[in-house]
């Protein structure tokens, strides 16, 4: 009986690996499978649930600074930067900074993984915004605490196309 169970498990595992290989087969890069999972067509609630699994989020207004324009003339290029007040020591640092655009069809814009060597918890990038809506920055610290801030951005011309 035991043997049988093990063999069944092995078969399942093999199938899983094959499935993953097929899914990633389109692109040659090994990391693609995961990256495609990061950016999916879904609602922002689903995205946050998928990334953080319903962990409580604290308001990070005191330590997280999210810099976005109030009005974005062109949604195709919107500069965003996030600065977090953090000592960035090996025991207490900011691990991830997520940028989430609520109204985008692919709400998760980027996930930045930081190392204590970064010296300061900061990231900046140009993003696309499909329409006016909230932009959130979610910060995950090394102890697992989640901090969130959001700002509303008005978009004159949407930049996401499809």
């Amino acid at each position, binding site marked *: 009986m035991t043997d049988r169970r093990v063999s069944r498990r092995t078969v399942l595992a093999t199938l899983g690996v094959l499935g993953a290989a097929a899914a990633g087969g389109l692109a*040659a890069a090994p990391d693609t499978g995961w990256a495609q999972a990061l950016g999916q067509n879904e609602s922002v609630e689903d995205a946050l649930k998928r990334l953080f699994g319903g962990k409580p989020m604290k308001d990070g207004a005191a330590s997280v600074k999210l810099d976005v324009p109030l009005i974005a003339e062109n949604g*195709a290029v919107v500069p965003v930067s996030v600065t977090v007040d953090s000592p960035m020591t090996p025991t207490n640092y900011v691990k991830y900074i997520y940028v989430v*655009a609520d109204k985008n069809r692919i709400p998760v*814009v*980027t996930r930045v993984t930081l190392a204590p060597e970064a010296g300061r918890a900061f990231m900046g990038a140009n*993003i696309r915004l499909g329409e006016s809506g909230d932009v959130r920055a979610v910060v995950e610290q090394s102890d697992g605490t989640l901090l969130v801030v959001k700002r509303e951005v008005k978009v004159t011309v949407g930049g996401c196309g*499809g």
Partner: protein
Amino acid sequence: MSDIGKVRLRIPSSIKPGDVVQARALVIHPMERIERDAQGKIVPKNYNYINKVIVTYLGKTVATFDTTQSVAENPFFTFTFRATDPGQLKVQFLDTTGGRYEGTVDIKFS
């Protein structure tokens, strides 16, 4: 389109040891958006966009950006690092077609 993969790195002109330095990396890349057909269904294909940016300084990874199609065309990324020793700062961009573009700059103290 031959410009795809051109990387430009910008660092401050004078850096002192121990400074936290802010650097900007720009790459020329189309970052293809999702296309839909007349019925509004997503056209399934392998969209060519950058999904990973890796910043290394003195051989250590300082920051990694996992990006999606919600990032603008010809994206630039800003990040910081603590300049401890002279050495190489390298930024690598990986896209979904297996493309790998990189730019390096030598950090020197003046």
